[in-house]
């Protein structure tokens, strides 16, 4: 059963070169990325530390597509931020909007060969793909604009999701 989920794209941190955004679903206190950190910081401190260190590099160097593993279809901007640790199973999904803008989503532990085979991870990626699609449409109609490291205009909209359960 499909239903509409209202969300907003929230600015988490601002730096000289890069701005980090995340997704805040209506009625929730934390953004998707904050939920990810809060869920795994205690159980997987090394993985979280590695992901944060990688984000710190992105903040300094910029958002380069080659540093990500693209998760969805060829034309979408949804990507996975890979961990440094070869054996780590923690995955974070995001949208690489531009060299100066990164939207961080949620993620989780990958126990299957591909993310599609895992219900929870698949939901994370699907939500981001829908958000990406919506943002692209809004960029084309100029209701959302990319101004350097800023996303401006309409950053609150809805996506249709399949399940009633939260990601």
């Amino acid at each position, binding site marked *: 059963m499909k239903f509409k989920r209202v969300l907003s794209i929230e600015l*988490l*941190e601002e730096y000289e070169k890069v701005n*980090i955004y995340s997704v805040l679903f209506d009625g929730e206190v934390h953004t998707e990325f904050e939920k990810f950190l809060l869920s795994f910081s205690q159980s997987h*401190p090394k993985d*979280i530390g590695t992901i*944060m260190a990688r*984000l710190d590099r992105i903040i300094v160097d910029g958002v380069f597509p080659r540093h990500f593993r693209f998760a969805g279809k060829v034309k979408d901007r949804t990507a996975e931020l890979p961990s*440094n640790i*070869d054996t780590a199973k923690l995955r974070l999904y995001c949208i690489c909007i531009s060299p100066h803008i990164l939207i961080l989503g949620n993620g989780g532990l990958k126990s299957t060969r591909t993310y599609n085979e895992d219900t929870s991870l698949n939901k994370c990626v699907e939500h981001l793909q829908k958000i990406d699609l919506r943002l692209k449409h809004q960029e084309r109609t100029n209701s959302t604009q990319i101004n350097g490291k800023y996303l401006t205009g309409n950053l609150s909209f809805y996506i249709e999701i399949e399940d009633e359960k939260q990601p």
Partner: protein
Amino acid sequence: MKRNSVMGESRKLITPEIRRSVDLSIYVADRIFDILEKQHKTQRDLANTLGKSEAEISKWMQGTHNFTLNTIAKIESVLGEHIFETSDITKQKEYKYIFIPLNAKCTYLSNINISPKTVSLTSEWNTVPELEGYDWCKK
């Protein structure tokens, strides 16, 4: 500029080892990328030369791979360039020389009111310059 408290707390989990490991991994990946660009080569070219798959090279370029020294040496020999800058491995020493006036005595430097000139040189013996009115002693 805006900062997020949850992210700030999570940053406390970054140990010096994690930070260094991430920095080195990304450094190596970016160096390979830069060298390939400079040589107008593709990841496929590198893959073919090394007998690896493109997927594996692509994974290297993500900056997450834990390279062995042997692999780095192999990549360097194929690309014909060092991944790590030579000066990092064989750093040249710098020699500093203090030049003192000719009528001053080196032994009692602390008792003499002099205006030393300090010059940094990379060669210990061959390139000590001559400054009129000054002699030198090595610092």
